[in-house]
C-alpha cells in the first residue's frame, strides 16, 4: 500500500533548542552562507529549506509496502517518507513488561517482552532470571523475527497428493483433531500402542507431553539426546551417579581448562556460563586455556589456545593426569578420601600415557601439557575443566570425558568453590515444585526407546539414541503407525540425510505423520498433517536449566500476547486430542483444568511476599523467576552429615565405611563421622567403575545399584547378545580410521554459530544476515597440498566409521563411503587444524521459509494457505535482503557471502558410539577433491 506523497515538510515541534537552530539556519540562509550545499544541481547555492527538500525528494526511496501487521525492521514512516520521532521517546510509555523465557536454543534465558497495544515491541533479558541475569544473545534478540515472521504457519495444513510433494490444503482444527484422533484410535485397536511415537527436537513442555503419552499408553517418546550430550552425561554419571551435568563454578574459578567446548557461542549453558567465565577471568583473575580443533570464539578469546588432532582430548587429559601423579601434584588427601581407588592402582593405568605419547597422539607439545597440568594443580581447588560436544561427540567421547573428569578428581576440585560442581537437578526442583501428577508409566517397550546395542544409554536416565531411529525403521527393526513430531528438524539436523528422507517418505514404515511446528520446516514437508504451533512468546511453561549459581531456580514462560492466527500450544492441542481419542485417557485432561490453573497448581509452593502478592502465581507473573535466597550453593554435597535419625537402623560396612539402611546405600563414614558421600556404589567418586564393566557385560548390577541408592537400572534382557568389554578406568581409545590418513583425506568436524541453533534460526532475518553461508574451513597447509585458495570449490566424500562397524556388527551401518557427495567452497584459515576440515551445522535449508533458503521470493505454493502472507508482509526482507544467491549456489556462479549455505549432514554418517549412543559428529573421514 503506497502512502500519499506530500511535498510539505512539517515544521519541527516547538522544542526551544531546535527552534533556535532553525532560526539560525534561516538567518544563515538569508545571508547566503550555505554555499557548500552540494547536489542542488541548480547552479545557485541557495541553502533554503525548499532546496533541501528537493534534494531529499530526489534521494528518497519508495515507501515500504506493508500488510496489516507491522513487521520488525520495517521503519514506520508516517506522512512523507522521512523518519519521525526517532528514537521515539514514547516507545516504552504505556508498554507492559511480560516476563517469559527464550527458547531459541536450550539455554532458556529469562526474557521480558514489552507489550503495547497487543503487540510485542521489543524483547529484553529479564534481570530477575538468576541464571542469565538479564543477558541475551543474538538469537534471543531476534525473537521478534520468530514471532512476527512473514511465513509463519498459522493454520493447520493437510497434504494433498503424495507425501513430500509439497501440496497442501488448509483445514480446520476440528478436522485436524479428528484426523489425528482416528489414527490414534486405530493404534489402540491394533494393540501395538508403542507404534505411536512422539519425537521431539527441543521440548520444554515435557510434563504435558509425557502426561499425554502415558495416558495413551505408549512409551515411545523419542528425543535428540544421542545427537547432543549422551557421552558427556554417561561419563559424568559414571563418576557421580547423582548428576549427568557438570556446572563448573567458573565465576569463582582461577583456572578453567576447556577441552573443545564453545561456551562463548553455543553450549547448553551459553549465556549463563559464558558470562561467568568472563567474570571469573576479568574479575577473579582466572586463566582460560582451550584445546579445540577449530578456533571458535571461545578458543580465539582464551588466554591460551592449542589445536590438537581431532578426537585426542582424552590423550591430553590423561597425559596431564600422568604429570599430576608423577610430580605428586595431586591432592593426596582428597584422593584417598574420595576416589574409589588407590593412586597406585590408577598410576598403573596411567603410566603409559606420558606427555610425550600425548604429543605424538595429539600434536600438542609435551612441555605445554606438563606446564598446564602444573598450573591447573597450583590453582586448585579453584580449578575446573569445561567440556561438551567438542570432546564428547566422538567415537571415543565417553573415554575422553572420563579422562577430563579425572583431572578434577586428582586436584581435588570436585564440588569445591571455583571448582568442578553439579546440581542435584538439571532444571526445576521437581521434589519441591512437582508438576501436577500424571498417569503412571505404561509397560510398552520399544526398541526405538531402548536400542539393545548401547550400553549406558538407559541405565541412569533414558538418554536414547535419536540418530538410529530412522536407521532402525529402514532396517525393519521397528515400525510406526503414527509419528508425531514436535519442534524437530531431523531431515536437516540428523546425520545421513538420505536415510532420514527415505524413511520419512515411506508410508509403510511411518503410517501417518503429524508435525507440530511454527514453520513449514523440512520435517513438516514430509508430514501428512502440519499443526501450527505457538512461539515461546505465546505459551505457558515452568522451566529452568542447569543452575550456574548452584542453587535450583524456577522461571515461568507465559503468553505475552494472544497466539497469532490459529496457532496453538501442545498444552491446548494434546488435551483436546485426548478427549477426542477417549478410551479413558481423557480423564487426565479435565476441561476445568485450564492452562493457567495447571501452572498455578505447579508453582503453588513457590514462596512469595504476602504483603505484595495474593499467591505464588501472581508473584511469578510479576517477577518471572524464583531463586531461594536461603538455599546454600551446592558445594561439597558429599560432606553433608547424616543425622541420628538418618543413622537409626543403619549399618556400616567395616571395610568400606559404606552406610546402608534396609539394603540401600545412604552414606559413608568420613573421618569417623557419617556423611552422605557420593551417590555411587562405592559412595565415592568412581574413578574405577565396576558398574559400567558389569553393565556392558549384561551382568547383574542390582547390588551395586542398591548401594548407590540412586535410580540406576540394569540393562534389560532384550540387550542380551550385545555384550562389550568396557574399561573401568579413564582410558584412551584410538579411533582406527584416523590413523594413516591419505593426503587427500581430512577429518570433518562440525560446529555451531553464535547466531544459530541447530536447525531453527536460519529463518530469522537478523541472524541469517550475519551468518547464512558456511564455507568449509581448511588450513593453509591443506590448501597448499591440494592447490586450493579462498573461494575454490571442493567435492567431499564422507566415509562411515570402521571403528563403529567393527564394534557393533548388528547395527549394520557398514563402513564404506556415503553415496551422496557435498560440493562446497573453502575458506583458508589458520584457525583450523591442518588435518581437519570444519563445516558448520544449522545451514543449507531447502525448506523452513524463504528467509532460511536465502530467497527473496515469497512462498507462492499451496503452503501459503497455512500462512497469513498478505497481512504479515515484510517489505524489509523483500527489498533489502542482500544475500540472495541470484547466480545460484553452484560453483561457477556463486558470490561469496551469499546463499543459504550447505548441509553437512548429507555426507555425515549415522555414527553412534556403542557405549552411550552419542553421535560422533566430529570423526568423519572425508576425501577432498578440488573442483576445477
Amino acid at each position, binding site marked *: 500500500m503506497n502512502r500519499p506523497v506530500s511535498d510539505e515538510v*512539517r515544521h*519541527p*515541534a516547538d522544542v526551544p533548542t*531546535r527552534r533556535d*537552530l532553525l532560526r*539560525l539556519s534561516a538567518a*544563515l540562509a538569508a545571508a547566503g*552562507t550555505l554555499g557548500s*550545499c*552540494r547536489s542542488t544541481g541548480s547552479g545557485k547555492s541557495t541553502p533554503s529549506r525548499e532546496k*533541501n527538500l528537493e*534534494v*531529499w525528494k530526489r534521494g*528518497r526511496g*519508495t515507501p*515500504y509496502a506493508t500488510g496489516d501487521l507491522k513487521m*520488525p*525492521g520495517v*521503519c514506520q514512516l508516517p506522512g512523507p*517518507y*522521512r*523518519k519521525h520521532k*526517532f*528514537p521515539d*521517546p514514547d516507545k*516504552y510509555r504505556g508498554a507492559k513488561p511480560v516476563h517469559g523465557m527464550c527458547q531459541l536454543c536450550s539455554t532458556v534465558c529469562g526474557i521480558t517482552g514489552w507489550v503495547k497495544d497487543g503487540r510485542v515491541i*521489543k*524483547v*529484553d533479558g529479564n534481570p530477575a532470571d538468576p541464571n542469565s541475569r538479564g*543477558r541475551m*544473545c*543474538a538469537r534471543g*534478540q*531476534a525473537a521478534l523475527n520468530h514471532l512476527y515472521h512473514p511465513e509463519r504457519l498459522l493454520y493447520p495444513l493437510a497434504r494433498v497428493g503424495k507425501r513430500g510433494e509439497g501440496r497442501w490444503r488448509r483445514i480446520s482444527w476440528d478436522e485436524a483433531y479428528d484426523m489425528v484422533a482416528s489414527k490414534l484410535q486405530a493404534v489402540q485397536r491394533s494393540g501395538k500402542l508403542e507404534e505411536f511415537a512422539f519425537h521431539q527436537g527441543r521440548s520444554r513442555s515435557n510434563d504435558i507431553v509425557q502426561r499425554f503419552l502415558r495416558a495413551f499408553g505408549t512409551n515411545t517418546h523419542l528425543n535428540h539426546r544421542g545427537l547432543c550430550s549422551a557421552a558427556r552425561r554417561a561419563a559424568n554419571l559414571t563418576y557421580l551417579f547423582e548428576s549427568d551435568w557438570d556446572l563448573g563454578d567458573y565465576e569463582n574459578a582461577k583456572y578453567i581448562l576447556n577441552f573443545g567446548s564453545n561456551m562463548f557461542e553455543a553450549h547448553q549453558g*551459553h549465556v549463563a556460563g*559464558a*558470562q561467568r567465565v*568472563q567474570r571469573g577471568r576479568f574479575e577473579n583473575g582466572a586463566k582460560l586455556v582451550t584445546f579445540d580443533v577449530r578456533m571458535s*570464539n*571461545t578458543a*580465539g*578469546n582464551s588466554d591460551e*589456545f592449542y*589445536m590438537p588432532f581431532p578426537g585426542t582430548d582424552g590423550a591430553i587429559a590423561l597425559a596431564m593426569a600422568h604429570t599430576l601423579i608423577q610430580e605428586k601434584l595431586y591432592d593426596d588427601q582428597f584422593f584417598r578420601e574420595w576416589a574409589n581407588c588407590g593412586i597406585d592402582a590408577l598410576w598403573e593405568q596411567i603410566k603409559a600415557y606420558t606427555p610425550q605419547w600425548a604429543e605424538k597422539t595429539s600434536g600438542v607439545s609435551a612441555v605445554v601439557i606438563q606446564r598446564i597440568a602444573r598450573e591447573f594443580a597450583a590453582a586448585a581447588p579453584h580449578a575446573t575443566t569445561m567440556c561438551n560436544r567438542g570432546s564428547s561427540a566422538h567415537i571415543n567421547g565417553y573415554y575422553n570425558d572420563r579422562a577430563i573428569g579425572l583431572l578434577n578428581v586428582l586436584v581435588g576440585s570436585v564440588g569445591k568453590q571455583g571448582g568442578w560442581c553439579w546440581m542435584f537437578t538439571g532444571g526445576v526442583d521437581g521434589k519441591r515444585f512437582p508438576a501436577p501428577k500424571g498417569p503412571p508409566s505404561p509397560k510398552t517397550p520399544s526398541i526405538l526407546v531402548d536400542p539393545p546395542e548401547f550400553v549406558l544409554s538407559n541405565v541412569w536416565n533414558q538418554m536414547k539414541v535419536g540418530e538410529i531411529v530412522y536407521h532402525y525403521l529402514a532396517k525393519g527393526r521397528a515400525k510406526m503407525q503414527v509419528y508425531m513430531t514436535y519442534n524437530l528438524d531431523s531431515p536437516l539436523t540428523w546425520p545421513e540425510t538420505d536415510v532420514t528422507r527415505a524413511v520419512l517418505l515411506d508410508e509403510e514404515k511411518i503410517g501417518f505423520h503429524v508435525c507440530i511446528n511454527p514453520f513449514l520446516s523440512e520435517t513438516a514437508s514430509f508430514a501428512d498433517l502440519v499443526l501450527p504451533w505457538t512461539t515461546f512468546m505465546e505459551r505457558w511453561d515452568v522451566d529452568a536449566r542447569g543452575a550456574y549459581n548452584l542453587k535450583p531456580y524456577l522461571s515461568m514462560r507465559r503468553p505475552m500476547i494472544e497466539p497469532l492466527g490459529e496457532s496453538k500450544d501442545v498444552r491446548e492441542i494434546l488435551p483436546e486430542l485426548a478427549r477426542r481419542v477417549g478410551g479413558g485417557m481423557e480423564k487426565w485432561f479435565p476441561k476445568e483444568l485450564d492452562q493457567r490453573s495447571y501452572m498455578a497448581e505447579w508453582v503453588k509452593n513457590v514462596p512469595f511476599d504476602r504483603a505484595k502478592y495474593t499467591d505464588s502465581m501472581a508473584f511469578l507473573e510479576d517477577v518471572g523467576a524464583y531463586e531461594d535466597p536461603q538455599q546454600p550453593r551446592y558445594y561439597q554435597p558429599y560432606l553433608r552429615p547424616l543425622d541420628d535419625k538418618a543413622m537409626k537402623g543403619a549399618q556400616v560396612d567395616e571395610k568400606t565405611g559404606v552406610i546402608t539402611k534396609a539394603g540401600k546405600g545412604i552414606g559413608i563414614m568420613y573421618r569417623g563421622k557419617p556423611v552422605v558421600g557420593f551417590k555411587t556404589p562405592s559412595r565415592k567418586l568412581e574413578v574405577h567403575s565396576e558398574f559400567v564393566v558389569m553393565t556392558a557385560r549384561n551382568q547383574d548390577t542390582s547390588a551395586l545399584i542398591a548401594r548407590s541408592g540412586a535410580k540406576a537400572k540394569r540393562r534389560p534382557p532384550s540387550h542380551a547378545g550385545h555384550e562389550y568389554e568396557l574399561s573401568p578406568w579413564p582410558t584412551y581409545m584410538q579411533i582406527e580410521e584416523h590413523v594413516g590418513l591419505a593426503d587427500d583425506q581430512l577429518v570433518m568436524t562440525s560446529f555451531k554459530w553464535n547466531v544459530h541453533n541447530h536447525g531453527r534460526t536460519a529463518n530469522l*532475518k*537478523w*541472524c541469517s544476515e*550475519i551468518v547464512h*553461508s558456511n564455507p568449509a574451513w581448511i588450513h593453509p597447509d591443506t590448501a597448499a597440498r591440494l592447490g586450493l585458495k579462498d*573461494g575454490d570449490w571442493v567435492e567431499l566424500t564422507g566415509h562411515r566409521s570402521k571403528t563403529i562397524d567393527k564394534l557393533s556388527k548388528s547395527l549394520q551401518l557398514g563402513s564404506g563411503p556415503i553415496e551422496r557427495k557435498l560440493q562446497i567452497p573453502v*575458506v583458508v584459515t*589458520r584457525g583450523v587444524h591442518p588435518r581437519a576440515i570444519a563445516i558448520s551445522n544449522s545451514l543449507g535449508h531447502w525448506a523452513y521459509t524463504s528467509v532460511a533458503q536465502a530467497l527473496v521470493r515469497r512462498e507462492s505454493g499451496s503452503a501459503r494457505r497455512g500462512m497469513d502472507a498478505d497481512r504479515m508482509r515484510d517489505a*524489509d526482507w523483500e527489498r*533489502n535482503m*542482500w*544475500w*540472495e544467491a541470484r547466480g545460484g549456489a553452484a560453483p561457477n556462479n556463486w*558470490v*561469496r*557471502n551469499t546463499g543459504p549455505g550447505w548441509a553437512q549432514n548429507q555426507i555425515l554418517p549415522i555414527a553412534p558410539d556403542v557405549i552411550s549412543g552419542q553421535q560422533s559428529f566430529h570423526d568423519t573421514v572425508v576425501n577432498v577433491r578440488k573442483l576445477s
Partner: protein
Amino acid sequence: MDRRSVLELGAAGALLAATGQAQGKQGVRHDLFQPEEHYRERMRAPADGKRYGWVVDARRCFGCHGCEVACKAENDVPLGKYIRQTIYHDYEKPQGGMARLMVPMACQHCEDAPCIKACPCGALHKGAGGSVQIDYDVCSGYAACKDACPYGAIYIDPVANQAVKCHNCTHRIDVGLEPACAATCPSEALYFGDLNDPESRVSKLKAKLEREGALAQLRPEKETKPRMWFASDKHRNIAQWEPKVPGEGQSYGPDSYSVYRWKEPR
C-alpha cells in the same frame, strides 16, 4: 538488491581493506565543514549536567552479535544497514598460536563531532548528555555527515533518505532502561553511562582501566574527542585492528561479516 550490487559491496569491502588505513591516517575532512557560526549552537550540549560515554572492553567481547541484533530490533534498522557491528579480527600471537579479537563498534559520540560540523541542514546536534543526535524534521539526506564521519558510523536510510546513527537509546534511558546493546551484552564488554557521575559503572571502570593503562581511543589523529574508550588485548593494540573500522564516506557493510574477511588486516 541485484548480484551486481552484491559484487559492488564486495569490491567496496576490498577497497576498504586496502584504503582504510590510509584514510585513517588522514586528518578530518575540514573541506566538508560548514562555517563555525552555522554549527556553534548545535555543538553545545544541553545543560543537563550529564556526560554520556562508552567503555568497550574488547578483551571480554566474545563476538556474540547480541548487541547488533538488539540494536536492529530496537531501531528497526533495515537489512544491509547497521547502526553497530562487531569486528572480527583473527591474528597470530607474537608467542605463537592463533587468537581472535572481537570489538563491538558504533558511533563514537565525539565531543568535537565532524558530522555536526559538516551538516548543512542543521540536523545533527548534541542532545542529552552530549549524545550526537539527528533532528529528523530537518535532515534531508545530504550525507555530508557520512562523508565526514571518520568512523563510518552513519548510514543513509534508503527509504527515508535520511541519516541514521547510534542515538544512545535516549528513549530507553528516559524510562530507566539501558541502551539495548549494553543491556543485553552477555560478556559484559559494553558499558554506557554518565561520566560526570563518579559512581556510575562506566566511570568506575574507566578509572580502573585508565590506571592500568589499558584504554585507547580510535583514530586520535582525527582529533574528534570521541566519547568511547576501548580496552583491547595486550597482544593487539588498536592500530593493528583499526583498519577494519570504516572511514569517511563509508558505512558498516554486510561484507564485514564474511568469514573470508576475518583474517584481515594481515
